[in-house]
């Protein structure tokens, strides 16, 4: 089993404002893998994602990204953005911007334009957003917006999809259906996924690998090997207990708390307002078969 390696993190450390966020992190991500970055709040999971993207400099070590994958090889979905309710732009337009939003000049009708329109339609179908993609994005629920944002990130056929807490602030049914959608895209489109998550359970059935992050390093491997009492206790140096509930959910007890001085985590402002009850309507039945 030697799959093509897309990302190779070696002995990497990141220092922000004179403080080491994490150090000696090693991990690899192969083509087509579904990988979760896990760890307690404030340990620097988003920072690892940004370091892999090349948005942050490393203090030590290297992060090699597959060189021959081209400039559009990565689709990136930053930590949850919510759109102003009054924003009068359709979901379709948002997806389209992911395709050609960086091009200067007036879009001219023609073969490329028609191909792009078709691509947007395919993407909307892929994420099951056909019923509401023509509505203004600000009026959609959190789960619906998240589907369209995933479609946008997939617009240029990336080989790697990087998602920063895409399940954050979604209700449980939507967490399950978005997780199923990402799992399905990973399998059917052959796109590798690196996803930051604070709860492994919604994505557990789809995961190939987890990267459990601590300040002094990271452990990576299959969920069954990493998320255990022994491994996590060794990683954090304190007694940690992993319990399995009768329905197969994992509960990690005794994770270290976030360091109190860690204030740079939410640099994109306060979290989005809590989703309203309307999100319960957003669970489509289409993904039920994808599990």
């Amino acid at each position, binding site marked *: 089993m030697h799959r093509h390696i897309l990302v190779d993190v070696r002995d990497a450390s990141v220092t922000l404002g004179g403080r080491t966020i994490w150090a000696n992190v090693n991990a690899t991500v192969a083509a087509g893998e579904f990988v979760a970055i896990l760890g307690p709040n404030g340990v620097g999971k988003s920072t690892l994602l940004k370091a892999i993207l090349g948005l942050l400099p490393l203090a030590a070590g290297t992060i090699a990204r597959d060189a021959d994958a081209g400039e559009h090889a990565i689709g*990136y979905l930053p930590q949850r953005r*919510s759109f102003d309710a009054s924003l009068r732009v359709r979901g379709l*337009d948002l997806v389209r911007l992911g395709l050609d939003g960086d091009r200067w000049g*007036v879009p001219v009708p023609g073969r490329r334009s028609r191909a792009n329109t078709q691509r947007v339609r395919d993407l909307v179908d892929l994420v099951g957003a056909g019923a509401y993609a023509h*509505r203004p994005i600000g009026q959609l629920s959190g789960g619906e917006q998240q589907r369209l944002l995933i479609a946008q990130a997939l617009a240029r056929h990336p080989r790697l999809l990087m998602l920063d807490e895409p399940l954050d602030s979604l209700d449980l049914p939507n967490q399950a259906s978005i997780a199923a959608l990402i799992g399905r895209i990973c399998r059917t489109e052959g796109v590798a996924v690196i996803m930051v998550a604070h709860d492994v359970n919604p994505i557990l059935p789809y995961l190939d690998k987890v990267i459990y992050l601590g300040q002094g390093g990271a452990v990576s491997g299959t969920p069954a090997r990493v998320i255990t009492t022994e491994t996590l206790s060794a990683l954090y140096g304190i007694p940690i207990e992993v319990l399995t509930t009768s329905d197969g959910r994992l509960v990690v007890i005794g994770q270290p708390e976030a360091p109190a001085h860690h204030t740079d985590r939410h640099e994109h402002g306060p979290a989005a*307002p809590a989703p*309203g009850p309307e999100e319960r*309507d957003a669970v489509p039945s289409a993904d039920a078969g994808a599990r």
Partner: protein
Amino acid sequence: MSPFTWNLLADLREMWSIPLLLNAFRAGSVIAVVAATVGWFMVLRGQSFAGHTLALVGFPGAAAAVWLGIGLTVGYFSACVAAALVIAMLPAAGRRGYREESAVIGTVQAFALACGTLFISLYKGFLGGTTSLLFGTFLGISSAQVVTLAIVGAAVLATIAVIGRPLLFASIDPDVAAAHGVPVRLLDVSFLLVLGATAAEASQITGALLVFALLLLPPATAQLVTARPAPSLALSIAIGLVTVWSALFVAVYSTYPIGFWLTTIAFGLYVVVGVVTRLGRVGQRGGRSPAVRREPMLDGTPS
């Protein structure tokens, strides 16, 4: 000039035979198109407050121009563009909308108005002109002024044509746009400059206080009608032109000022369209089950 007849074409032809009025229609048309286009992006970006401030800064600029005896047009443009540069220099402008900078922008606005009154008092015997500077006039637009308006307008439209798509991307979704290599910060600054030039254009017919009649109301009305970018932009321009032409037409025959007519017509259109689209939406909802109904977030928390 003969009194109003119901033969509108004949009325219009008679108006256009007077150079002063013909210039007003020419200038008004240029301004309507430019303001509706740039205003469309302004509304989308949530920069109305910055737009309003840029327009107000035109007032001291124009007052100073009168006091110093240089052209009004020069006064408007230099003041507005300078103010755009100041706002663009504010730290992290645009990254989180303009909520955090609103106090600074408000400060600039207050100081600009104060300077305006100073320049007016320095130039004695200017009291009648103050009202025009603040609330607009369609009289006294020279042919040279029309040419200047057209050249600046063409430059603004050309800029928007080039940066329009990345600007839309950066306005809606700055983080992802930046990840796609869009120069978000550069676009922020460019748009503010374009907005400053546009506010200066519009001020010359609406006055500094009523620029929103052409800069905000047509795009806001168009965006109520449709969320599709191209049709919404086209509709915004059409509404701007209809507003300017009908306001000029009415103003010629009435004794009330042009600023009043422009604003009233634009506002009337906005209210009518707002009521009609709301009724339409309620009608659509009637056919759907209440469980599917989705209200927009009502708490108004900026996100």
